[in-house]
């Protein structure tokens, strides 16, 4: 299908999210939409898929004006969108999720649907059981499910919003193979991303957005420098890898075993030293999150002990851990890290040590202005927290951390963030390390793990490797470990690094 977007504009409150964007996408091609966080990519795609109404502008499909006022209209035109956060139903079975939204009679044809499900899964090489529960899937598998569903309801245009965020390397390769084969079958694909290498690898053509405007297009072969230049309007410098000297032990984990709803991990041993950065690598759901939660006192170990500064903290509450200088930044920023509905300055007041009964509004405003400037947050003291983009919410979480801290635990510190924000966030985290704070973080981005960690723990299906020095690992060797290969060496009892 030939897609033409003409002069699409959209304003939210005072922010011009899209201004006069025009774009033509030929059929049977993969069109990249590149831009940093808050550039207006998602807004444009939400308008195209009927989720959001534009203030002005037209959408033409195969040369005819299409009226898309709701997702139902978009579905009728064969436009399917894979949203950044999978819009599926976690407590349902895969088959129910697959069926939901498809037209038909009172009783759905479950057997027919299951057959279609298996055929689609086989066609793309997805390993999905229609009777399993959606909440048992990884983000990558949920994406596969959603792609299958969109194809099943007859989409000929597929929009993918940041699809490579939060999925493993093999899943990403599989996704790309799927998209290429779909495009060669005549599907038009819009691929929204801030990741240069993904766009360069996959797309037949790239449109770059910056601050709500289309600033340029490119065709292969791509010049990375040009793309970065258009995305940011300037060049970005990457930081040097620095080694931090080993300090005193901050956190020691001795033979800890943990149990979650679906996974058990056992026998974790590590001494985290002051100023050290530990990366937790592994496929989503391999036990990293439970381990990180246990380091914050959120989950109680089945056996083993946690010590902070030589003090036994096993079985103590999160509150006690916090008092010892442990900070925990969960991946679900808006659900668990911040309070939707409160403004930025209210957040700063909340995180302050209590002083007095009434809020000193003037001081709060001053404080927030300082922190907003110090952490380079794009937002006003009075704007609600949910109006910030993902990158700015993450900066906000860092700005809320108290001083001094002995240990910072971060889940996916830069998930969904563009290069500039990533470099910035890690700069701030490393500043803390220089002051003696240790960091333990989870990431599914192997480059991030290798770039920033001193040592790495690899998680695979509940097994945990001994700490490995980051310089002894490469993307390939780490990728193999995450996939469950090369673990025999550890069993032979390699020494604790």
């Amino acid at each position, binding site marked *: 299908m030939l897609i033409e977007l003409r002069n699409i504009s959209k304003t939210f409150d005072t922010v011009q999210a899209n201004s006069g964007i025009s774009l033509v996408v030929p059929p049977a091609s993969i069109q990249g939409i590149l831009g940093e966080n808050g550039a207006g990519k998602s807004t444009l795609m*939400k308008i195209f*898929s009927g*989720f*959001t*109404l534009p203030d002005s502008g037209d959408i033409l499909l195969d040369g005819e004006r299409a009226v898309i006022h*709701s*997702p*139902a209209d978009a*579905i009728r035109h064969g436009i399917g*969108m894979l*949203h950044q956060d999978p*819009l*599926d*139903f*976690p*407590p*349902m079975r895969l088959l*129910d999720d697959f*069926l*939901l*939204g*498809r037209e*038909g*009679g*009172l*009783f*759905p044809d479950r057997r027919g649907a299951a057959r279609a499900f298996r055929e689609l899964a086989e066609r793309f090489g997805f390993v999905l059981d229609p009777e399993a529960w959606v909440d048992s899937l990884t983000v990558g598998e949920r994406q596969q499910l959603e792609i299958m569903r969109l194809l099943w309801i007859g989409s000929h245009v597929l929009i993918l919003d940041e699809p490579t965020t939060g999925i493993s390397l093999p899943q990403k390769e599989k996704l790309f193979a799927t998209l290429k084969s779909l495009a060669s079958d005549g599907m038009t694909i819009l691929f929204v991303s801030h990741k240069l290498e993904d766009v360069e690898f996959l797309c037949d053509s790239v449109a770059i957005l910056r601050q709500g405007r289309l600033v340029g297009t490119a065709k292969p072969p791509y010049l990375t420098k040009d793309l970065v230049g258009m995305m940011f309007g300037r060049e970005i410098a990457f930081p040097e890898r620095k080694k931090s000297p080993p300090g005193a032990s901050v956190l020691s984990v001795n033979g800890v075993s943990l149990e979650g*709803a679906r996974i058990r991990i056992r026998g974790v041993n590590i001494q985290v030293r002051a100023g050290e950065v530990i990366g937790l690598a592994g496929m989503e759901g391999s036990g990293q999150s439970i381990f990180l939660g246990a380091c914050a006192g959120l989950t*109680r170990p*089945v056996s083993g002990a946690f010590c902070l500064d030589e003090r036994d903290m096993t*079985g103590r509450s999160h509150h006690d851990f916090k008092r010892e200088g442990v900070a925990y930044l969960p991946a679900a920023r808006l659900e668990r890290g911040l309070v939707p509905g409160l403004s930025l300055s209210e957040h700063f007041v909340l995180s302050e040590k209590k002083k007095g009964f009434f809020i000193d509004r003037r001081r709060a405003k001053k404080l927030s202005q300082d922190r907003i400037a110090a952490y380079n947050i794009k937002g006003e003291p009075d704007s609600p927290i949910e109006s910030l983009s993902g990158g700015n919410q993450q900066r906000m979480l860092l700005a809320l951390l108290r001083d001094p801290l002995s240990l910072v635990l971060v889940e996916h510190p830069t998930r969904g963030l563009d290069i500039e924000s990533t470099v910035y966030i890690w700069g701030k985290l490393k500043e803390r390390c220089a002051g003696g704070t240790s960091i333990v973080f989870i990431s599914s981005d192997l480059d991030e793990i290798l770039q920033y960690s001193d040592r790495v723990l690899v998680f695979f299906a509940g097994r945990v490797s001994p700490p490995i020095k980051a310089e002894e690992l490469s993307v390939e060797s780490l990728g193999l470990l995450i996939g469950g290969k090369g673990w025999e060496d550890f069993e032979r009892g390699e020494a604790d690094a």
Partner: protein
Amino acid sequence: MSGDILLISLAGVLTAAAPVIFAVIGETISERAGIINLSMNGTILLAAMGSFTVALATKSLILGFLAGALIGGFVAAIVAFASVTLRQSQVAVGFVLAVLCRDLSYFLGNPVMGEAGPRLSSSPIPLAASIPILGPLLFRQDVMTYLSILLIPLAWVFVFRTRPGLVLRGIGEKPSAAYVRGANIGRLRYRYAVIGGAIAGLAGPIYSLSVKAGWKGTISGLDGIGWIVLAVTIFGGWNPVRAAFGAYLFSLLQWLGLVLQPAMPGVPAQVLQVAPFPLMILTLLLVNVGNAEWVERSLARLPEPTRRWLSKLLRAMNATPPAALGTPFEDGE
């Protein structure tokens, strides 16, 4: 106690549970769509009074039942209007309606108080009624009791096996995901709130035209049942079959309160009358205790096999509410 009396009593429990079943299933459907109809206590009272008045005036039981459903649907429509259209708190509106409808029923019901009205008679099913044990237990009931028993599998099949039921679960769980799949969230929430309200509204006439026939104002003994209905809906894990089980348990407790009274003369009558309510809440607490983190912590000390078994049991009993329950949905403008 002889077997016959026991059978008749148990048959009475089935009859007494009928209104509670209608109410919990109506509430379950509404909550599955994401709308908490907190007005249940007032709805039942107002529907009981209204349907009794209508039946008395028209001499028609059918019109009486119809009036009950209409009142229930109307009150639910107010909750839906406040929540879907005005995007206001369902809890506040529902609570005010619960109190308002209750007092309204006492006030408007004054003229018909104590009047002798029509009453639904039992309709034994030929042949089936003479089956030993099952006959007196199941087949000598009135129409509404039969319907209440039929409603349980019907509601279950609707919610878990049909296409509209799937969408219903979707809009209560994650409206944004249902919306991108083409569902009109606002319209569907209206629809299911009103249907649920109408089904729950039938609980009123079942009381005033059958189970506790007549209208006796504040001493009708119906005040409080609506709150139990809300608790049973939670206890039932938003599943019609489990909710019906809770309804039967509640009626059984009420019946036990009645039969134990002569056997325990030392206990004040009020204690046994009120006991089902706290007992019900206690059951509820026990069922959902697995949610609490401290339970997990305490369980960790038990020996491994016991602990696994217990935590499995607790997890199976746990029910998670529809994730979007009580929250208004805003589409992308």
